[in-house]
């Protein structure tokens, strides 16, 4: 093994190294979510605007850009999940429980990261099958011609919309801790900036959550696009 690969292995096998991988991949998702939300909200601007955006996205760099993004996101997801599952298992193994447990100040979100994360993972798999792979033949037909209509029809399904909303609420919880936590992991904060970063993280989490759920709610409950 070269020095570099040995160092990379040691980095991955160390607690701080794995956490840095979690933080960097988490920040990649945070940047992605902001872009993805802005794009999706075009659904409210109108059929034409949304379809143009979808067309532009799929043909950017002769269709290469979207694949580059998919590879980075999928790679990040695998790293994030493998690292967090391994960290969580190690954490459980390190600590026997108290007969009388108490928590001084850790937030509820921070204590359910693995559960909010795994729900989001289940959602991501469902979401990709729903709108990217399009396992439903009706949506697959629509997706080719009219992505806007595909979104509308897709969310007219109550089960899909409700799961979407639940997943977004848990994503909000995940981000409420994760956003500022990533800055601590990367050493990019101090006691002066920590409260501000925590506030920005919570605001970001709420905005992302409300932004995304506005789409299925408008379609399912307010008949948008009907």
């Amino acid at each position: 093994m070269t020095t570099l690969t040995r160092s990379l292995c040691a980095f991955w096998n160390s607690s701080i190294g794995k956490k840095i991988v979690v933080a960097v991949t988490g920040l990649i998702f945070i940047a992605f979510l902001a872009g993805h939300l802005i794009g999706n909200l075009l659904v409210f601007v109108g059929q034409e605007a949304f379809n143009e955006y979808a067309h532009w996205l799929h043909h950017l760099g002769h269709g290469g850009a979207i694949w580059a993004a998919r590879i980075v996101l999928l790679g990040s997801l695998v790293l994030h999940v493998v690292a967090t599952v391994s960290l969580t298992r190690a954490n459980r193994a390190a600590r026997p429980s108290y007969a009388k447990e108490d928590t001084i100040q850790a937030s509820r979100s921070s204590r359910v990261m693995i559960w909010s994360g795994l729900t989001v993972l289940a959602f991501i798999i469902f979401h990709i099958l729903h709108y990217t792979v399009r396992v439903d033949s009706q949506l697959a037909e629509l997706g080719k011609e009219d992505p806007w209509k595909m979104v509308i029809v897709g969310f007219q399904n109550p089960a899909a919309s409700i799961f979407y909303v639940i997943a977004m609420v848990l994503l909000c919880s995940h981000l409420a801790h994760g956003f500022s936590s990533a800055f601590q992991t990367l050493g990019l904060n101090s006691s002066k900036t920590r409260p501000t970063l925590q506030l920005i993280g919570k605001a970001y989490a709420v905005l992302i959550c409300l932004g995304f759920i506005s789409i299925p709610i408008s379609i399912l409950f307010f008949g948008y696009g009907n």
Partner: protein
Amino acid sequence: MNLTLKVWRQAGPNADGHIETYPAKDIPASASFLEMLDIVNEGLIEQGEEPIHFDHDCREGICGMCSLTINGVPHGDERAITTCQLHMRHFNDGDTIWIEPFRANSFPVLKDLVVDRTAFDRIIASGGYIDVRTGSAPDANSVPIDKKDADEAFEAAACIGCGACVAACKNASAMLFVSAKAAHLNKLPQGQPEKDKRVLAMVRTMDGEGFGNCTNQYECEAACPKEISVDNIAKLNRDYLAAVAREATV
């Protein structure tokens, strides 16, 4: 005051432990928590029973020897004090108090409330020092140090190594301890030459001892009797990343 104690009793390292209930009668409110246990132990000894074993030494909040998780909180609910500085006036007559050892698999129970914290010593031995001839104390200000750095190094050096951070952490992570011990040297000019070596060695020993991973919940900072800041953890993360990068490329 009269209290009910729920105390962890464990005959030895390999024995099964359990919670035992004891009455604590006629405890003066001015007694410290450890004095309260002394009174209960005198009663137990009179009855020919094994007294409750617990760690202590200075009883003035400086040695880091006392431990105890009281009602689920290391060193009890009062902020910024050790168990030996906790007084019974903070409790109410009739209270039930749960007393358990500092819990972490890297801190195995030796007997009752006494745990083995030598994992901390091994972390220090791996890098928490400076390889120079010490001689006598240098003249003040012979090495100029920024006020900010001096203050931060001093605050980190206030760590007494009691292990409350590990006991409070949901993951039994030792990051607050390790980061404070690394920072108080890494902040100062004397600590610079061996900074990377120190950071890598201390983090690797910490991982090898089986402590958990920090999830940035800051229970450690809240439980710390010396109010060591989690800023030290952010700094250790940064220093570790830089040290690994240099190790990989140089």
